[in-house]
């Protein structure tokens, strides 16, 4: 037991560096995926053009229906065939942004449907333009309604950064795997890494639950 503790402590610097990189991957892919998902959700929900709506729904379903790992491999191993070479980091960001945008747009579509139609009618009656209606009336409320779901979703994105191990990006799981392949103490190192993931995820979902009780209206 004391060996286990001593080993774990000696691994912590590497694992925490990996955890930091996992959080950074989460942050960057949300930073790109959230606004994209918000716009995608809004346009899909509000557009009057049927073909455009079908196209966007198809994109959203594709983003949600394909395994993120397959999308990641397609970008990392496939795109070089057409002369687009992305580093492991940007392949991950591109793959996650794609699937994030799909999920976020579904959350946002639900939230936009939750905004009373009378507000849109009021905007029209007051002659407020579409862009301004979106930016000052819809977006703030839709974000508020969907914040708990989005925080919960961020926890899922954080978990899925572990896929980055498949393209050898130095995040938490990769750090754990490297320690395991040197020390052969796979069980111990994956338990410590798993605990680090769990602490972040459980904290985030508790926070999401707390937000949900605060922002209900």
């Amino acid at each position, binding site marked *: 037991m004391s060996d286990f503790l001593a080993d774990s402590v000696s691994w912590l610097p590497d694992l925490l560096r990996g955890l930091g990189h996992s959080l950074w991957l989460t942050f960057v892919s949300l930073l790109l995926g959230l606004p994209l998902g918000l716009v995608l959700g809004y346009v899909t929900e509000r557009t009057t053009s049927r073909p455009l709506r079908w196209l966007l729904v198809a994109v959203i379903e*594709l983003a949600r*229906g*394909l*395994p*993120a*790992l*397959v*999308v990641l*491999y*397609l970008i*990392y*191993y*496939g*795109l*070089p*065939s*057409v002369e687009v070479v992305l580093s492991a980091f940007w392949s991950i960001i591109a793959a996650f942004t794609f699937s994030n945008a799909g999920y976020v747009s579904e959350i946002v579509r639900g939230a936009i449907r939750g905004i009373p139609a009378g507000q849109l009618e009021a905007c029209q009656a007051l002659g407020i333009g579409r862009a301004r209606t979106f930016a000052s009336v819809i977006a703030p409320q839709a974000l508020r309604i969907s914040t708990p779901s989005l925080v919960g979703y961020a926890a899922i994105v954080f*978990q*899925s950064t*572990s*896929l980055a*191990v*498949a393209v050898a990006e130095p995040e938490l*799981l990769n750090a*754990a*795997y490297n320690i*395991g392949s040197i020390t052969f103490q*796979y*069980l*111990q190192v*994956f*338990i410590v*890494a*798993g*605990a680090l*993931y*769990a*602490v972040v*995820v*459980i904290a985030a*979902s508790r926070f999401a639950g707390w937000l949900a009780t605060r922002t209900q209206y």
Partner: protein
Amino acid sequence: MDFSLLPAALWLTAQITILSALIGMAAGVLVVLARRSRVAPLRWLAIAWTDVVRGVPPLVWLMLVFLGVGVFTPLGAAVIVFGLVASAYCAEIYRSGLEGVAKGQYEALDALGIPTRTGRLRVVVPQAAVISAPAVVSYVIGMVKDTSLASVIGVAELTFVANRAANRTGDGITPFVTVGVLYLLLSLVLALVGRAAAARAESGWAA
């Protein structure tokens, strides 16, 4: 790429999904029973189980069970891990299904003097099952995608076969687009089967 490998790989993907879905749906019943038990330590255990199982990424579980425990075949490890993860998610789905049964139903059981056990089994559970069914179906459809992670520990399912083909031929587009389409088709088939099963369950219990 060698397309003749795909049927076996597709079957493996379907097998992992179906086996672990069955394990998860059955074990989920045990977890939700513990979660609603009158014995406090059992409840704590169930809460800890759902939180910890869902808090650790499935890929970490796969590596922990396959490399860490080290006694399972890749396929065995994958089925166990996805089954255990599904048990936690199914338990939460069942729990909200049970909470979704109208309070009046319990009061009616009391008023009619129906014994608790009979009432729970024949009145509450069937309704909770109907409420939970769509969520279970969409969870299982989501599992199809998760099984792609099994490729990382060497299960020769769709993603693994595509990855090997990409490495051998240098063409990274055909294999991954092909298996991407297969994943979508598999999800679609499961969605249709699931919808039919859910509709059948509903009409069966309503009658």
